[in-house]
């Protein structure tokens, strides 16, 4: 699938181009670190709109990291805009100035942590509380995740390079409280209140590979690298092969100073992130999901009793009967490129106007609808 979006992760995209691609006007002008922009409908003359208007209407924007031309295979590969905060290796823009916060609103913290390549969008402070912490010598991505975890927030980077965040139980950034999509193995279809999607395959996985019993925060002071004294441990009933309680510790580095108060919320979130992961994978065709009915990060309902996708406390009327779906979060979505979309290359330059955009739509190798 060409576009793989991940919740608060870079994801990736692959744009296959036909062998008839115009080498001079298109191929040679597409450079790394430019951007691929996907519009939901093809716009014949992008220069009739401003750069900002096109980005605001975009379905997806990704940064070009690799171009490949081998015989008849022409591909553009890259990652989503979260890459501009930092990648999986921890590489990216850095916080190289000591930033210290005491009881600050998140909306006053994020502007300092965002790199120049990502603009501040809408930060909703409601229910998030106040942040206290220090940051130095870490990637912007690490620093931002620290604040998000500490304050129980989630965030999204929009196709127009803006960063939105709110508390993870609120609806300002993602659809959380009242999902509109239900995935079912049978009986899917439309309904006045919900959009039903066929879950062609349901796979249930329990993954303990990331599990730790203890999280310890290390003090990343310029003069030392010692335990900050903040340790979170969970009670559990797992044992090693010789009957000892299973012990696994994750060290998490955070820049601190002697005045740092106990980052209790942060440690709890780290332990939650590193718990046994019960995950269900649903193969739900996204063909039926149009105009943002379901985006990565949104909650949706899934109902399949044989797979334990049931929540008896959640009664829903759907297509004439009562069902009790489980509310689950969309963590990853693979979106095909289908004919009708507009695919453009936006150059990497100090100033970009819409006239600089290159329309590569006609050379894209579209995916067939299943």
């Amino acid at each position: 699938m060409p576009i793989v979006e991940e919740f608060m992760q870079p994801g990736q995209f692959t744009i296959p181009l036909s062998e008839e691609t115009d080498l001079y006007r298109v191929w040679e002008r597409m450079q790394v670190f430019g951007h691929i922009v996907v519009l939901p409908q093809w716009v014949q003359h992008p220069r009739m709109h401003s750069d900002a208007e096109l980005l605001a209407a975009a379905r997806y924007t990704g940064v070009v990291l690799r171009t490949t031309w081998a015989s008849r295979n022409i591909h553009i590969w890259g990652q989503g805009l979260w890459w501009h905060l930092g990648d999986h290796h921890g590489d990216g823009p850095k916080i190289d100035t000591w930033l210290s916060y005491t009881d600050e609103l998140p909306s006053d913290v994020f502007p300092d942590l965002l790199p120049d390549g990502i603009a501040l969008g809408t930060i909703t402070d409601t229910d998030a509380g106040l942040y206290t912490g220090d940051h130095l010598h870490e990637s912007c991505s690490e620093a931002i995740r620290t604040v998000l975890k500490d304050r129980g927030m989630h965030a999204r980077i929009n196709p127009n390079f803006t960063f939105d965040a709110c508390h993870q139980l609120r609806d300002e950034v993602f659809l959380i409280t009242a999902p509109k999509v239900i995935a079912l193995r049978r009986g899917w279809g439309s309904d006045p209140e919900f959009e039903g999607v066929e879950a062609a395959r349901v796979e249930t996985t329990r993954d303990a590979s990331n599990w730790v019993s203890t999280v310890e925060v290390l003090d990343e002071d310029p003069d030392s690298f010692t335990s900050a004294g903040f340790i979170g441990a969970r009670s559990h009933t797992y044992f090693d092969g010789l009957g000892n309680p299973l012990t696994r510790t994750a060290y998490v580095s955070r820049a601190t100073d002697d005045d740092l108060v106990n980052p209790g919320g942060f440690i709890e979130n780290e332990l939650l992130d590193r718990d046994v992961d019960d995950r269900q994978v649903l193969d739900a065709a996204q063909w039926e999901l149009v105009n943002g009915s379901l985006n990565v990060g949104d909650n949706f309902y899934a109902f399949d009793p044989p797979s334990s996708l049931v929540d008896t406390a959640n009664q829903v009327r759907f297509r004439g009967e009562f069902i009790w779906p489980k509310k689950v979060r969309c963590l990853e979505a693979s979106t095909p490129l289908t004919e009708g979309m507009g695919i453009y290359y936006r150059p990497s330059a100090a100033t970009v106007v819409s006239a600089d955009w290159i329309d590569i739509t006609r050379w894209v190798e579209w995916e067939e609808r299943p």
Partner: protein
Amino acid sequence: MLNIGRIGLDVTLDNPSAWGSSASRGRVDQITGELHAATLAETKALRTELLEQNGQIVPVVWSEDSTVDGFYRQLDADIDAEDYALNDNGLYDFSVTLERIGGSAQTEFQSLLTSVLVVNQHDLLDTEVRPWHSPPVAALAYDTGDTSPTAHTRTTEDGVIPVIIDLDTDVDPTWSVEPVDYYKGGAKITVGGRVRTGLDAPNLPADWVVSNGQIRFKPGQSAGVSTGRILMEVFDGTAWSTSKAFAVLFAGTTVVPKWHYVTIVRNTPEVAILRLVRDAEEAPATTHRHTLDIHLRRGSRYATFNYHFSGGAATWKVQRDSAEATTAITPTGGSSVAAVRATSNDADGDRFVLGSQHDTTQDNTQGGIEFVSTRFYSFFIGSEINGSSAAANDQADALILQYMGAVYEQVRAVPR
């Protein structure tokens, strides 16, 4: 006589011209023949309904060779229409591929049930409601493990059907049935006079029937046009009763006069769901639509209705089209009225029941209930067949508690 699922039950299916079987990791049978009936309309119906059965578990019965009788999954169906296909009574060449599950000796069925207390405003608890389930008529070897539900029976036009009440909600019962009995007592949908096997059906909002052999619902119609009413008829063991009409009223006063679309939402022997859709050209005149889902389970003495209006909140009333005095019913364990029931037996000896999990205002003169300030609401319409002489598990109080113990069912075939 050949029956492939429902094909052949209402329109005779001729003996096949060929029946091939192959076995590698399982047995696959391929049947070829001709679809040819007494009229062109019936021949077309055979074609459409055979195609619609793809993917379903189908019982197959052949009078010429009972050794092939059993349960299959229809994998695909091919229909060839030559240039003569629509001449005279019609003729289609067909080929259907069936994956054999097994005969009645090695096949049993498991009903995967999810049962939860309906969220209600009568303070009914999950320990007070009565979830229930019915296998087909003549089903045997019904097993709920080491639980002890209540065994009851009801009479359908196909015979006596078991009704297992007070089910343990953690149980997925298993049962067995002969292929020839698989559909008996089950839910079925008829549109345009044809029993439908799948979801495809013509748009005939004035000509449909949802039935389970003991209660059925039809549209009110005048000169072939829907009047918006819903008619209920019940089977008393001998004959079907006179129709009893119900109307839905917007703002409590304006009868919803017509339905524009009828759609089959779910069509399985255990549950049938029909959807009616209306453009709000009037009652009220807005750019919105009404949706009414009719949900009927095998073995049930009531149907569940879900109404949705895409416009603003309003007052809605569901009532007898012709006034029929009712009595308010507070169910056992409940704190408020959950239904109205006809005060006296009607001419057929029955008493209708109309109720909801929502708070309602009762009209015991007209025989109706009213929902205030809402866009969507649910209710049930049923009958105490034999009225004041109805068995305890068929009386209004029991029907309310059965309704409140909602059950979602999927059936699968399992090896015995």
